[in-house]
């Protein structure tokens, strides 16, 4: 298990809470950082909904980063989340060629490590995959989740009370549908 450290016990608890998908800690992170992210995104050509999207993406990116390898937070968690959000929003604006950003000075002093920067860069592509996945039907989602988790086809068939050959066929159909919808999404080419 990777080591997670932060400057304060409170931030450390919140990071652990994120790793454990603890709703209460996630809510605290919302209260802590989202209002300032909303203000900033609104000041930079976005809406509250944009800010909430970016915030969710940032939490997932932070989770992925902590799962990758040891993670040491060298500033407050609030500042760290805000800078991830800033980078994500900046990236979106760049793609839309609207890049005049007004960042508060204290935000600019926070540095993300290379792994976090990489995770942030991947994040948009990941979000696209997840969005397209969410648009699949419930059974397709189940089959693909189990398939990607290496659950044997026979077990999936048993769980869904059907035959293994049917599940193999369904898995192919679902995966093809997912890949097709990703490729057809206008954002896919931009994110290559």
């Amino acid at each position, binding site marked *: 298990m990777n080591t997670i450290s932060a400057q304060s016990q409170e931030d450390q608890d919140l990071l652990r809470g*994120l790793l454990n*998908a*603890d*709703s*209460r800690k*996630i*809510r*605290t992170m*919302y*209260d802590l950082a*989202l*209002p300032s992210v*909303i203000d900033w995104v609104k000041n930079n050509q976005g809406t509250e909904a944009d800010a*909430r999207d970016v*915030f*969710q993406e940032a*939490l*997932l990116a932070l*989770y*992925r980063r902590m799962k990758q390898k040891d993670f040491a937070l060298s500033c407050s968690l609030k500042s760290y989340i805000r800078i991830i959000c800033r980078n994500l929003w900046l990236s979106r604006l760049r793609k839309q060629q609207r890049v005049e950003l007004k960042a508060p000075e204290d935000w600019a002093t926070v540095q993300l490590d290379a792994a976090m920067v990489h995770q942030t860069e991947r994040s948009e*592509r*990941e979000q696209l*995959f*997840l969005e397209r*996945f969410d648009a699949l039907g419930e059974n397709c989602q*189940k089959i*693909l*989740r*189990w398939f*990607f*988790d*290496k*659950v044997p086809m026979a077990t999936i068939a048993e*769980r869904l009370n059907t035959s293994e050959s049917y599940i193999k*066929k369904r898995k*192919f159909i679902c*995966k*093809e549908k*997912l*890949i097709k919808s*990703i490729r057809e999404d206008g954002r896919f080419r931009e994110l290559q």
Partner: protein
Amino acid sequence: MSKQQEYEQIERYLDKQMSVEERARFEARLAQEEALRQEVQLQRELAEVLAGEEVHELRTRIKEVDEVWKASSGRPSKPSRSIFSIRSIIGIAALLAIGIFTYTFLQPGTKDASELYAQHYEPYQLLLEDRSTSPGQPNAQDLQQAIRAYQQANYPEAARLFAALQQQAPDNPTYAFYAALCALSTGQSQQAIDELSRLQSGDHLLVEQSRWYLALAHLQAENVTAAKAVLSQIENGQYKYQQAQRLLKEWE
């Protein structure tokens, strides 16, 4: 080669299940075919993004919190001291004491339903506190009172207040959910089972939570067969799926 066969070949390649010869042939194709390279890359990424039930669980939790946060118009939640009120602490301590006693003096592995219930039950974290409480709403004051009673572990009073809210808004699954939890906390197993059973379908945010607490309600009613049936419906990645799997294993 059909598209399906090609997909299966890519999957075998990514899972390192190809023989040396097959792998060499496939890599030779990869070196020459740009479209195949792109397909492999996309499928590799998909596997990385979609694998891991924890990620799906985290996304579900984040979406729930986001919904609640949005509904509360971003008003910060109150400090959660009430979740650990004196009564809650006494209750938890009592449960722990029962747990330690049974673990120490009774044989592990022969736990009965009520022990398992005591071991696994914990009050649901109250995310409701800021929701739907804008001053203009007719039920805002009632909701505040219900929340306060729930947070103070005054479950009989909370049950009465949530039942009243349910009457005002029969389609609100959240009120029904908390009413059911209050019933469970006061030992009204059948009432909790009835309420939670009704919440098993429908498009609302508490379906998964309702399933877990329905299983606990069956345990409280000492109906292990029904509890097992409900637990087996809790799929990977859903609320409390790891605990559900552990419980099911105990009975194997």
